[in-house]
């Protein structure tokens, strides 16, 4: 946010209540795929409209997003694919690093945006109609995520696309775009990778005063045991610190996935402190009958997403979410969506929270206590 500092220093302070929208205040039009937010922040889309709504607009420019993987399921890949595809659709430069031998092959698995508007526009129209009838205070009880996205202006609808997970991204999107793929498998230390990231951001990132567009860096399974630098704890941390500062100074976004079980506890906490946005994903067992009774739409759920931390630049007030756990669902078996956990109505019970219902069938069958409200 170095660019943001310049105007604030020279201008005398007007009022502490004035809304400073530095980016929108400039006459430079924003490139596609970037949306301004409060406190001079700007967002790029995560590629999942419902996740953008949960995060208050998307991934903030200049943030390092960490996704904690589930060791048994590749759900983090869904987030990573959406993030990369969205960047490619917006023609934002992309750097992808993974411990695979040939990381470029991964581009073939990226999802394609829902091609015709015919498929999704009826859904949005319907939601917009509903939104007109419902008072704004009650929106949150009513599929808030879709509401907020659909009520945006026309040009902002393109800010985040729905991706069809069954269709691979067409070649026309990939060819000729600024995409770099790096294998981190054979890196004995991270110096080369660090330099590569630095060069990539220097080439493409926005310079002070002018907006060239946001860069996206996505790193998959960063601390995989097959990588040669795996045991060099401090070198990895130093790289992360450096990546964080590079991302901040160039106003890009980096998404990094890692497996928390592979790190020692103190190191894991250090990683988490370095993250601006910290998310974990978890698979759910297929045949958990107790859970199926407890939650509606259990059969459509593919996993759970937990948001642990959202640190915003330029603001000290913490970003408090209504809920931190969301279900990952596949809508029409195509689109990945995030939803609040909805508890199924249970006979004779006012309902107990998901977290409190560790006893499973017992809580769903018996009445809850007198303090339940």
């Amino acid at each position, binding site marked *: *946010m*170095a660019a943001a500092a310049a105007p604030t220093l020279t201008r005398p302070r007007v009022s502490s209540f004035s809304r400073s929208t530095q980016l929108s205040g400039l006459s430079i039009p924003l490139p596609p795929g970037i949306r301004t937010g409060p406190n001079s922040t700007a967002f790029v889309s995560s590629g999942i409209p419902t996740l953008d709504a949960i995060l208050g607009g998307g991934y903030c420019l200049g943030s390092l997003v960490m996704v904690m993987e589930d060791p048994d399921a590749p759900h983090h890949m869904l987030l990573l694919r959406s993030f990369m595809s969205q960047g490619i659709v917006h023609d934002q430069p992309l750097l992808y690093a993974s411990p695979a031998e040939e990381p470029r092959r991964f581009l073939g698995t990226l999802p394609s945006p829902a091609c015709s508007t015919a498929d999704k526009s009826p859904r949005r129209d319907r939601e917009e109609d509903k939104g007109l009838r419902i008072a704004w205070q009650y929106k949150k009880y009513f599929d808030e995520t879709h509401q907020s996205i659909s009520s945006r202006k026309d040009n902002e609808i393109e800010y985040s696309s729905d991706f069809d997970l069954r269709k691979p991204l067409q070649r026309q999107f990939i060819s000729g775009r600024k995409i770099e793929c790096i294998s981190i498998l054979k890196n004995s*230390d991270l110096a080369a990778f660090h330099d590569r990231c630095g060069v990539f951001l220097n080439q493409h990132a926005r310079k002070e005063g002018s907006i060239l567009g946001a860069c996206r860096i996505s790193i998959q399974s960063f601390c995989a045991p097959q990588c040669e630098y795996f045991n060099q704890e401090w070198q990895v941390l130093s790289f992360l610190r*450096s990546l964080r500062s*590079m991302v901040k100074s160039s106003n890009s976004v980096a998404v990094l996935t890692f497996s928390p079980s592979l790190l020692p506890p103190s190191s894991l906490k250090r990683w988490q402190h370095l993250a601006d946005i910290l998310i974990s994903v978890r698979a759910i067992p297929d045949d958990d009958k107790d859970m199926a009774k407890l939650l509606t739409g259990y059969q459509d759920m593919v996993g759970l997403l937990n948001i642990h*931390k959202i640190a915003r630049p330029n603001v000290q007030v913490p970003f408090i979410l209504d809920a931190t756990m969301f279900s990952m669902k596949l809508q029409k078996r195509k689109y990945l969506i995030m939803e609040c956990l909805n508890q199924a109505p249970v006979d004779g019970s006012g309902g107990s929270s998901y977290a409190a219902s560790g006893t499973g069938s017992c809580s769903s069958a018996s009445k809850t206590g007198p303090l339940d409200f």
Partner: protein
Amino acid sequence: MAGSRSLLDEALPTLGKALLIEDCVETSGGFLLHHLVKRFLLCDRPVILVAFANTFSHYDRILRKLGCNLAAPRDKNRFVFVDMLDPQLQVGNSGGTDGSADGDVGFSLYERICKAVRSISTEKNSVAILVDDLSLMEVACKGSVDDVIDFLHHCHTLIAESDCSFVFLNHHDIYSSMERPSLMLYLEYMADVLLRVEPLATGSAVDVHGQLTVLNRGVHDVAGTSRSKFQNFHYRVKENGIECFYPGSRG
């Protein structure tokens, strides 16, 4: 608002010589650092902010909302910002992997601080030095705890020599799994005032953001004996300040 704000200020009557702020992943203690920067500047004390975690514009915008402009004291040489986030200034970056150059991080930072202290100190008011945060300094030193402790030791001498005050921010959850966290033990031993920020056991809420424990060491009571004073608050962070209240006192 004014009454509730003074609750925290009452808990910190004198800011002491070494303050330690401890936070964790769930709740950031950055707001206390901003509050202290503001308080030092309002007392007309020169401030040096060593930032490993955030950029100048981040602090500047927050402090402006708190009613304190950083640019003006910076122009008057009353405020020095040491940007340790800048990749250009990161000592021991990718090239220096053997640890030879990394030992200098603590010492070079200490030298920079000394230089800044000399340039901005006045005979009237002592300098306040704030470090955000020490765990990142440990990373910058490639995990050499001894280097960080050496740095802290040098800082301690600066307290005695130049009558400076120090505020350190660190994350206590990093060290909770360690058997003998020497850095944390040293810090807690060194600190006159300890501020610990923790989340509520019941999770985060919109109106209560967490709880704050203030430990004042060496408080002299009427009889003249020295003891520690321990206070516990709930707090809510706002754009223009911190609202502190006793647990359960908000309807």
